[in-house]
């Protein structure tokens, strides 16, 4: 019988290598796969390329990876964390900044065998014209994001964006069954399905393991075919996170 449940997060995640690219779900701390991210730190992986919407507002989640110097490049739309920017301007991390919708679509495209697509988002801007600083050295621009191919379609300029196939996908879900079928809760869904699709090998951390059949065929949010390994979150989510919410005020 197919059973994607893995009892030990650390053992399961040991296949992730230093230098890997990892697509990570979550929007801020909502739906962020913290158990996987912490395990990655505990396993001492380094030189990572993380593809994620936000780096975070504190030293948890991707913020911890950044603070511990484990990240070589971030592909994101809204990093937030000041310490991330400090590392960026200091030349320690590259930032591939892309529009949020482009990020979501690039992850979906990569996971869907779509090599590239034309979108109007960002056409003609600094994020498409080759001027945005990808990296700094001594607080001077060292390299810039490559200019993106632009084409007029239906009378409007569009930029060509590449699908992202990540070495690994990290998702956080509410529930999983042994086939890897996932169900998310409210807006914690966000980037998790597309991060899972983008990964060559995908890990899902979940709050609840259920029996096969407990998630009805019409109630599956992400089909198990996109998921390779299911682990439990380190701790169940507290019912009320108002304390955390206060901290997340920008």
């Amino acid at each position, binding site marked *: 019988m197919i059973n994607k449940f893995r009892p030990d997060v650390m053992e399961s995640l040991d296949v992730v290598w230093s230098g890997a690219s990892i697509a990570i779900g979550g*929007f*801020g*701390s*909502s*739906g962020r796969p913290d158990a996987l991210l912490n395990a990655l730190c505990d396993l001492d992986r380094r030189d990572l390329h993380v593809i994620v*919407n936000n780096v975070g*507002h504190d030293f948890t989640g991707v913020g911890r990876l950044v603070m511990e110097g484990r990240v070589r490049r971030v592909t994101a*739309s*809204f*990093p*937030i964390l*000041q310490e991330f*920017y400090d590392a960026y301007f200091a030349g320690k991390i590259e*930032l591939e*900044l*892309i*529009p*949020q*919708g*482009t*990020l*979501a*679509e690039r*992850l*979906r495209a990569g996971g869907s065998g779509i090599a590239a697509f034309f*979108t*109007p*988002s*960002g*056409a*003609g*801007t*600094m*994020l498409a014209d080759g001027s*945005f600083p990808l990296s700094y050295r001594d607080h001077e621009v060292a390299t810039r994001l490559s200019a993106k191919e632009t084409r007029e379609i239906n009378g409007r300029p569009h930029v060509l964006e590449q699908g992202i196939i990540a070495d690994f996908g990290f998702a956080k879900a*509410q529930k999983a069954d042994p086939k890897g079928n996932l169900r*998310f*809760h*409210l*807006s*914690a*869904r*966000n*980037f*998790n*399905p*597309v991060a899972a699709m983008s990964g060559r090998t995908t890990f899902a951390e979940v709050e609840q393991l259920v029996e096969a059949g407990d998630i009805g065929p019409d109630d599956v*949010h992400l089909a198990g075919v996109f998921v390779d390994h299911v682990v439990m979150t380190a701790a169940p*989510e*507290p019912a*009320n*996170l*108002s304390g*955390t*919410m206060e901290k*997340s*005020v*920008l």
Partner: protein
Amino acid sequence: MTVNAVAAATVIGRSRDDIARRLAEDLVDGYTVNLGVGIPLAVPNFLPDDREISLHAENGILGMGPHPGFGLEDPDLTDAGKQPVSLKVGAAIVDSATSFAIVRGGHLDVTVLGALQVSEVGDLSNWYVPGRNPAVGGAMDLVAGTPEVWVCMEHVDRKGISKLVPQCTFPVTGFRVVTRIYTDLAVFYVVDGRLLLKECAPGVSPADVRNRTAAAYTEDLFL
């Protein structure tokens, strides 16, 4: 055209809340709307009771409601600013790719955004101040995909310099995307790449607007 910064102190137009209130009047019953940070966040407070406006949040909510009240926050239900929200009856959740399919595909009616600058042809700058921390979020998708992009902003910045400009000097979010501008002093429409002054705020004269506006525009006031 130069801007008379001194004159700014002598004219009092709409408050930030009043800008949001004025914009809210123009939202049509049944619209689906995305609200950016800043003044736009006040818009829901001023929607007329007889209109149902559905709010979209980039992180995948359609039918977003207000803060649920202290102690009722759900970490799995936050808006695009990571703040706790509630859902209206009939709300739907989508993933981020579908959320931006809605945005890019033109399925929203209006996007309401703040701005650093708007040019006289409707270019918008609102994502990045060079030298500060760069972040873009969904702004470029929202302006590229939504048929109506309404800006709410102060007419001039803290130094008294017009935010309505001949050409944007800050990095651009989208070109020729803004369709309306609501400021403390006036309401402008952008039609076919031309800026039209449609309305002055109560107590503000067309001359007051002219003195504080660097962009070229045509007066086309509602009667």
